[in-house]
């Protein structure tokens, strides 16, 4: 069965985020009152798996093997939907 899974990869707490700092400054230049900004990357992945738990486990393995570098990144995986189902 095909599942749609979202994997979000971002810097660990405490890791300096130069890109986030630039974005925050730019938002302030536009007049927004913002504090810090942290940038993360989201991957939406179609995963072929037996059930939602397996789809989640596979996406977590993808993060460990490619999408995240454990020195600086944390990741979060969420099963968005099952193909053909809208409930």
């Amino acid at each position: 069965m095909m599942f749609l899974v979202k994997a979000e990869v971002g810097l660990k707490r405490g890791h300096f985020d130069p890109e986030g700092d630039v974005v925050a400054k730019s938002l302030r230049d536009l007049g927004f009152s913002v504090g810090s900004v942290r940038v993360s990357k989201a991957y939406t992945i179609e995963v072929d798996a037996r059930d939602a738990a397996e789809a989640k486990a596979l996406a977590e393995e993808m993060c460990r093997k490619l999408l995240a570098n454990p020195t600086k990144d944390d990741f979060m995986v969420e099963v968005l939907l099952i193909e053909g189902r809208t409930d």
Partner: protein
Amino acid sequence: MDLRKARACILRVGGTNCDAEVRVALEELGLRSDVLHMNWLEKGRLSEYQLLVFPGGFSYGDYVRAGAVWGKKVLTRIRRDLERFVEDGRLVMGICNGFQVLVEAGVLPGGDGSFSTTPRAVLANNKSAKYECRWVFLRGEGSQTPFARRVGNGETLRVPVGHGEGRFLSESEGVLQELIRSNRVVFRYSRPSGEPAKGAYPFNPNGSSYDIAAICNRDGNVMGMMPHPERAFFGWQAVGYGGPQGPADGRKIFEGIIDYIMEL
């Protein structure tokens, strides 16, 4: 070994650069070099070479993270051949993106055996949030490795950098201390005087821990460095060139490679 019988392999994939410059530098010193797309590297072919170079660039568009996609591809396609190559004491050099590739593949800093199963370091976004493309000063600290044997400990070199993701961070303080303790920090960013930059910008261009510009593996035959020695080979490439003069500083790194191969 007779240098005329030795050969270097400069690997390329979509997005690599300066492969031609590395080839010119090596061939100028008498080492025949092939620029080879990784898809053409059939099983076992690596054993024909004494030196393998992962050049700079933006392999696979630097998608995911700089060097990540190529790093994983190296593991799936040539891991065993590369492990054997390293165990044989042959030389591997990663320059800029090539350094990022070696880190993402777990080749550097490496594990207890040879490669680590997951990366134990990363080349993160520059602290300045800028693409740093300019000349820097490097302090030699790893003259025991073939790559830096022509560079005295404490000697200063001028070599350019060109990267957005060069901030070396290790998995833990323990990994960093081990690198320092075992003399595996080959080059550090420094002030013109040769004093380590101690994190001060612009001398340390990216905010690297311990001003790290280059590290090597446990046996010293694999080195990754962010600066580009091939862009500082001929005198006329050097910053402030004003007429005939000696070679540029990066040449010493290539000369160290040649010395080592001739001793094989």
